[in-house]
């Protein structure tokens, strides 16, 4: 089965609203990484979060290992936050670090 499940698949919000993106995983991990991709752009790493809560401006990432979940919270969303958000589970398997991605959340912030 799929090791990393993201929800929702898509989310449409009005500017100023908060966004909550979820990632659930079914296996052990070294860390959870969150990425952002603007249409046509590169994957940009937002957070490298093995556990606990990390903040970066309006973004907050929380990883709770025993509950096998990680979340990305965007407060006071702006139209420029629109894009695809991907979570990826980092595992140490067969002596190497691998990222297993979720399918992503398409976020649309309307003015």
């Amino acid at each position, binding site marked *: 089965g799929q090791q*990393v499940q993201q929800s929702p698949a898509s989310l449409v919000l009005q500017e100023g609203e908060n966004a909550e993106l979820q990632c659930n995983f079914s296996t052990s991990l070294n*860390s959870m*990484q969150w*990425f952002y991709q603007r249409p046509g*752009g*590169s*994957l*940009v*790493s937002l957070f*490298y979060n093995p556990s606990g809560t990390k903040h970066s401006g309006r973004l907050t990432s929380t990883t709770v290992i025993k509950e096998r979940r990680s979340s990305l919270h965007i407060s006071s969303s702006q139209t420029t936050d629109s894009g695809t958000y*991907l979570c*990826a589970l*980092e595992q140490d398997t067969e002596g*190497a*670090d*691998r*990222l*297993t*991605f*979720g*399918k*992503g959340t398409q976020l649309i912030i309307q003015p």
Partner: protein
Amino acid sequence: DTTVKQNPRYKLARVGKPVNLICSQTMNHDTMYWYQKKPNQAPKLLLFYYDKILNREADTFEKFQSSRPNNSFCSLYIGSAGLEYSAMYLCASSREGALKRQYFGPGTRLTVL
């Protein structure tokens, strides 16, 4: 410079023809990765180089080759492209250590006709 560069950005190939995609980084990262991403699917790891050692994923072992002539460059080679190879190919790199963030390039969109 924390950028990973990929060439070309777009590639059109004929069925049965070879394809060679290039990735470069100047961050002196030990590991370079190649992922395949198709629409509505998660990026899928194809292979990675740790220093000079190539690791290919079991389910794509025979479909892709790679070379890393030096620390900065890594290529992805398809010997005979099929329609199913049409996808975005993402290159990434990381440094060994406590903070192993992977830095991604913009991708190469390959269309096989």
